[in-house]
C-alpha cells in the first residue's frame, strides 16, 4: 500500500497522541494523581506507529511495557487505555492489568506482559496457529534491546526460522535496558546481526523515521503473509525519558543524548516538517490538529477519573476464564 495524504496525517495524529498522552501522564504523576509509575516511550513514537500501521486488525501484535504508540495504532480505544492507566473498572483490563497488561483482542492485542522475552515466544505460538489454520494472519513481536538478550528470544528466533513462521520480530533498540547501555551487554555493533546466526533476514533501521519503519515492516509483513518466513528488524531509536518515572538518566553520555534529543532527530518534529514541506497540512491546520488531539486526551482523562474503581466483591474474580466473562 502506498501511503496517501490521509495516511500521513493519521500517522502523525497517532505519534502526536502518544506524545501528549505520555506527557499528560507524566504531569499527572508529578501531581500525584496517577496511581502508579509509567514507562514512557517519549522519542520512540515512530516505531510503534510505523509497525502498527503496516498491520491488519486481525494480525496479532505482542508487545511489552513501552507500548502506547503500538496499542493506539493497532486500534485500541484511547479512553479504555487511559482508564486502565488509572486502574478503573472501565479500563481495557478492568483495572486488573494496569498499563503493562493491556488487551483488546478485537484489534489483535492479546494481553501484554511485563516479562521480557515472552512477546517473542508468544508471537511464535500465534504464528504457529496461523500456519496450522492456513490463515493469512501474521504475528509481530515487539521487544527492546534489553529483551533481545533473553534466552526466550533466541529460542523464538531459532524456531521461527526453522518453521518459516509468519512472524516479524521488531527490536526497538533505545540504547538502554533500564540503566545498562546496549554496548555493555552485546558483542555486536547492531543487535540485528545476531539474526544472521539463525539464517534469518535482518535489517537495522532509523527507528525515528516513521516512513523507514513503515516501509521495512510492510515488506517483512508481506513476506510473512506470503508464507516466506520471518524477518528481524532492529529500529534504532532513543528513550528520551528515563526507564520509569523515578529515573533521572544520570548514567547517560551527554554527547549521545545531545545527538538524539534534538529537533532534527525527534520523530514527531521530523514528521511535522514533512507535512508542512509537502503542504499536506498548513501551519494553522497543524495547530488545529494538535489542539483536537490535546482535547481528546483531556476527555479521556476526565472519563478515566470519573470511572468507578473495580468492586471489592470482584477482587478474586477472573482467576479462571469463563466464556461468559467476555
Amino acid at each position, binding site marked *: 500500500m502506498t501511503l496517501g495524504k490521509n495516511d500521513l496525517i493519521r500517522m502523525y495524529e497517532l505519534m502526536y497522541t502518544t506524545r501528549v498522552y505520555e506527557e499528560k501522564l507524566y504531569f499527572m504523576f508529578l501531581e500525584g494523581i496517577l496511581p502508579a509509575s509509567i514507562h514512557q516511550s517519549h522519542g520512540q513514537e515512530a516505531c510503534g506507529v510505523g509497525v502498527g500501521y503496516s498491520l491488519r486488525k486481525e494480525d*496479532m501484535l*505482542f508487545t511489552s511495557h513501552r507500548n502506547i504508540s503500538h496499542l493506539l495504532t493497532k486500534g485500541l480505544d484511547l479512553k479504555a487505555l487511559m482508564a486502565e492507566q488509572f486502574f478503573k473498572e472501565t*479500563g*481495557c*483490563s*478492568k*483495572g*486488573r*492489568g494496569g498499563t503493562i*497488561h493491556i*488487551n483488546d*483482542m478485537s484489534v489483535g492485542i*492479546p*494481553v501484554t*506482559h511485563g*516479562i521480557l*522475552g*515472552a512477546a*517473542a*515466544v*508468544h*508471537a*511464535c*505460538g*500465534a*504464528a*504457529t*496457529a*496461523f*500456519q*496450522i*489454520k492456513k490463515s493469512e*494472519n501474521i*504475528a509481530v513481536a515487539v521487544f527492546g534491546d534489553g529483551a533481545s538478550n533473553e*534466552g*526466550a528470544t533466541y*529460542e*523464538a528466533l*531459532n*524456531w521461527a526460522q*526453522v518453521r518459516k513462521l509468519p512472524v516479524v520480530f521488531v527490536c526497538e533498540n533505545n540504547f538502554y535496558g533500564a540503566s545498562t547501555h546496549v554496548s555493555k551487554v552485546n558483542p555486536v555493533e547492531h543487535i540485528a546481526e545476531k539474526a544472521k546466526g539463525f539464517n534469518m533476514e535482518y535489517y537495522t533501521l532509523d527507528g525515528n523515521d516513521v516512513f523507514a519503519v513503515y516501509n521495512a515492516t510492510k515488506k517483512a509483513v508481506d513476506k510473512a503473509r506470503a508464507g516466506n518466513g520471518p524477518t528481524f528488524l532492529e529500529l534504532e531509536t532513543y528513550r528520551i525519558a528515563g526507564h520509569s518515572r523515578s529515573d533521572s538518566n544520570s548514567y547517560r553520555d551527554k554527547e549521545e543524548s545531545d545527538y538524539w534529543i534534538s529537533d532534527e532527530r525527534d520523530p514527531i518534529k521530523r514528521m511535522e516538517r514533512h507535512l508542512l514541506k509537502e503542504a499536506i497540512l498548513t501551519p494553522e491546520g497543524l495547530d488545529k490538529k494538535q489542539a483536537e488531539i490535546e482535547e481528546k486526551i483531556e476527555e479521556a482523562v476526565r472519563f478515566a477519573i470519573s470511572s468507578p474503581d473495580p468492586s471489592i466483591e470482584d477482587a478474586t*474474580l*477472573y*482467576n*479462571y*476464564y*469463563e*466464556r461468559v*466473562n*467476555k
Partner: protein
Amino acid sequence: MAEMTIGEALRKAMVDEMRLDENVFCLGQDIGIDKGWGGAFGINQGMVEEFGHERIIDTPIAEYLMGGLCIGSALAGMRPICDVQYGDFLFNMASPIFNEAPKISYMSGGKMGVPMVLRMPVGSTGRGGQHAQSLEGFLVHTNGLKVICPSDAYDAKGLMTAAIRDDNPVVVLEHKLLYGNKGVRVEKNAVSTVCDVPDGDYVVPIGKGRIRREGTHITVVANLLMVYRVLEAANVLAEEGIEVELIDPRSLLPFDHELVYESVRKTHRLVIVHEDTLTNGWGAEVAARAAENCLYDLDAPVKRVTVPDTILPCAKNLESFLVPSVERIVQEIRSIVNL
C-alpha cells in the same frame, strides 16, 4: 468398552479430541519423529501417522519456547497439548507456566483465557534429583492453573478430555509407573492401571475426587502411585479389622475438600499419603483445611505419610526407603487407628 492402560487412555483422549476439534494439536520433543518414539514415554505413538506433522509438532529442546507456543497459539484460538517429557523440566518453562499462562485471564479482566494442556511425567523411578520429582507443591500454589493426576485408565481418559476442553491451563501429572505394564516402553515395577474405558464420549469433571474404597475406621487421601500402595495396605489392615476409606482426589487444583470433610465426619481419622516431599506438599493444605473445618470430628491427630524433605536419590535402596511403602503406610495407619 475396551480395556486400556493409562498410557492408552491418554492417547485415546487426545486422538478423539483431535478428530472432533481441528483446533487441538500436540507439541513436544520427539513426539512425531518418523519411525521414532512417539514421545519419551510413547504416549503419542501413531498420532503423527494419522494427523501429520502439522498437528503433531516436534519442537527443539527449548522449554520456554514450548510454553510460549502453547500460550500464543491458545490466544489465537488453538487448544495445544504439550508433552513436557519429564515434569522436572517445568523449571525451564517456569515463566510461561507460573508467571504468564495462569495470569492471562485475571490480568485481562477475564476477557481472554488460554486453553492449554501440559503433560508432565512425574514420580520416583530410580532417576534421581532431576528426573523423578513429584512437583505437586509448586503447581498447586499457582492461582489460575488447574492440576489433575489420574490414577487409572477411566479417569485418565475422562480427565484428559476435560482438560483439553477446559478454557484454562491444565497440568496433567502422569506417574511414570502408572502408564501401564504393557506396550513398548514399560517401566520396571510398573503397576497395572488397566480398566474398562467406554468407547463413547465422557468427561471426568476437574475438581471432583473419588472414593476408591469405602471404609469406616479411617479416611486416607492419596494420589497417583500412592493410591495403589494404600489399596494394598488397606487389604492388609482389613485382615486386622481396620476398614480404610480411600479418597483419590484426582484433581489437586481445584481440590475436592468437601469429599474429605464428609469422609472424616464419618471415620473421625485422617491420613494423607503422597509422593511429593512433606513441607508444603498438598497434604499440608488438606490437613490445615481439616483442622479448620472438622477439628471436632477428629479423634486422632492428622498424619501425613510422604517422602521426607529431601532431594531424591538414584540408589534403589535409598529411594525405596524414602518413598512411602506399603509396609510404612500400614504402620502409620495402624498407629493412628490405635490411638
